[in-house]
């Protein structure tokens, strides 16, 4: 039983990171109707920036917030420079731009920060303050940080005029411009937020994984599985999906398939969801009356 609970808690901890990546994917999907394949590499690059800041003597949390800020601006700039020109172009062109960004960020990480594995210190104590027998200090800490991020994002979209405008712009860009919303800026803001959320996920993941340019490759798959399982058009579905994927992956890894085949869980979930329930568990069926 203890072993089981241990797996569940550590699944929730990694699940929160999948949830954050899934949320970032959904946010960009809602405004562009494409999956941002570069999400993981963008997050890795941001994590490298954070590592470099800490390595050059900055305190952890200052580096953390600075990196999130840089990631936000970076996401915004990427949308303005690379995505906006191809917005209304065919799917394939968009996919190629996303893949191009993936390659660019992956190469930049390796080129600037080298391919050697880097240890990334956790800011949290080794021993958890609550339930120390089931969850480590970093797991609890990263769970707390990602939950805080998700809460902030929720409050932002639910209660601020800009959040509402962003939802409107993603959903019906033409109408949004007719009520005076500057749609392209709202989409850019969405990219900034997604990039910032990805950066948080990367920074929380690094102490568990070791930092290298391919760190987020697998995580992106889990995040994608989370987003699809929850429903690609539903941000909170993606969050729920993240936790489900995290726990499922850990339990199956521990008791059924072994840890070598863990990533297969993500792939099976992706294929399974797409074939059996393409809308996902919580996918909104937009109701329209004719």
């Amino acid at each position, binding site marked *: 039983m203890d072993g089981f609970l241990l797996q569940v808690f550590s699944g929730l901890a990694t699940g929160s990171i999948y949830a954050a990546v899934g949320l970032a994917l959904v946010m960009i999907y809602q405004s562009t109707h494409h999956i941002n394949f570069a999400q993981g590499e963008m997050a890795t690059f941001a994590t490298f920036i954070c590592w470099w800041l800490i390595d050059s003597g900055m305190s952890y949390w200052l580096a953390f917030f600075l990196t999130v800020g840089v990631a936000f601006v970076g996401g915004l700039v990427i949308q303005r420079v690379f995505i906006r020109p191809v917005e209304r172009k065919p799917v394939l062109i968009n996919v190629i731009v996303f893949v191009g960004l993936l390659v660019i960020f992956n190469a930049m990480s390796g080129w600037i920060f080298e391919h050697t594995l880097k240890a990334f210190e956790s800011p949290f104590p080794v021993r958890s303050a609550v339930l120390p027998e089931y969850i480590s200090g970093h797991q609890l800490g990263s769970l707390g940080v990602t939950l805080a991020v998700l809460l902030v994002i929720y409050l932002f979209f639910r209660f601020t*005029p800009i959040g*509402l*405008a962003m*939802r*409107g712009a993603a*959903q*019906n860009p*033409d*109408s*949004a*411009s*007719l*009520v*005076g*919303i*500057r*749609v392209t800026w709202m989409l850019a803001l969405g990219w900034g937020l997604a990039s910032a959320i990805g950066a948080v996920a990367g920074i929380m993941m690094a102490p568990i994984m070791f930092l290298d340019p391919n760190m987020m490759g697998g995580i992106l798959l889990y995040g994608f599985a989370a987003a699809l399982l929850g429903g690609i058009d539903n941000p909170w579905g993606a969050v729920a999906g993240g936790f489900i994927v995290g726990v499922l992956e850990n339990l199956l890894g521990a008791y059924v398939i072994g840890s070598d085949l863990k990533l297969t869980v993500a792939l099976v979930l992706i294929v399974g969801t797409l074939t059996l329930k393409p809308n996902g568990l919580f996918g*909104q069926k*937009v*109701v*329209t*009356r004719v």
Partner: protein
Amino acid sequence: MSLLQVKDLCAWYGPTQALFNVNFELAEGGITTILGANGAGKTTTLRGVCQTVKTSGEMIFDGKSTSGLSTDKIVRMGVAHVPDGRGTFTGLTVDENLRLGAYTRKDKTAVSEDIEKVYDRFPRLRERFSQQAGTLSGGEQQMLAISRALMLRPKLLLLDEPSFGLAPLIVQEIFEIMKSINQTDGVSMLLVEQNASLALNLADHAYLLETGKVVLAGPAEDIRADETIRRTYLGY
């Protein structure tokens, strides 16, 4: 003084030209209607005013040129547009739709008051305020669309076929409401409508478009009395 002057408006969809040197004026406080058959360029004219299509020509709204301005800037000058298909944010709630309509306004308390006014005018919207707008009936959606546009406190309201797809009784109701908005709130209107007799009853001025050109213009009464109009568009 006219609120909107449009000179030599041309519009294109890709390489296809849809409007050819359209000229019209809209009096402050008045209701002007644009009549015409399908494909004559009525919707495009409204889109041209808001610059959601590629245009050339000169437009002066409220004494200022709007040529080359982006849609959101024109909206901020006080032009509200109820587009064809109503432009409802179907996945957002009724309340959120109304709040988005007031997106450009900074006077928070007045916005809340205006939302109250909308609910007083349309009690059915109050009942459904937390419901997804996509679940409303056609008539309710049209009421929501007009209300959302009014949340901007516009000087000019562009209406694209408000009667489309609605039962005759609901259409009557909507047109009554438009009349009262024009009279009590002093909002000028540019109305595009298939139902020519309804439109001519409401409007004070009318323009007739044929294949992207204005072929007839004048006070609504004169247009209504015109022999060709009567035969072609009013059908008696």
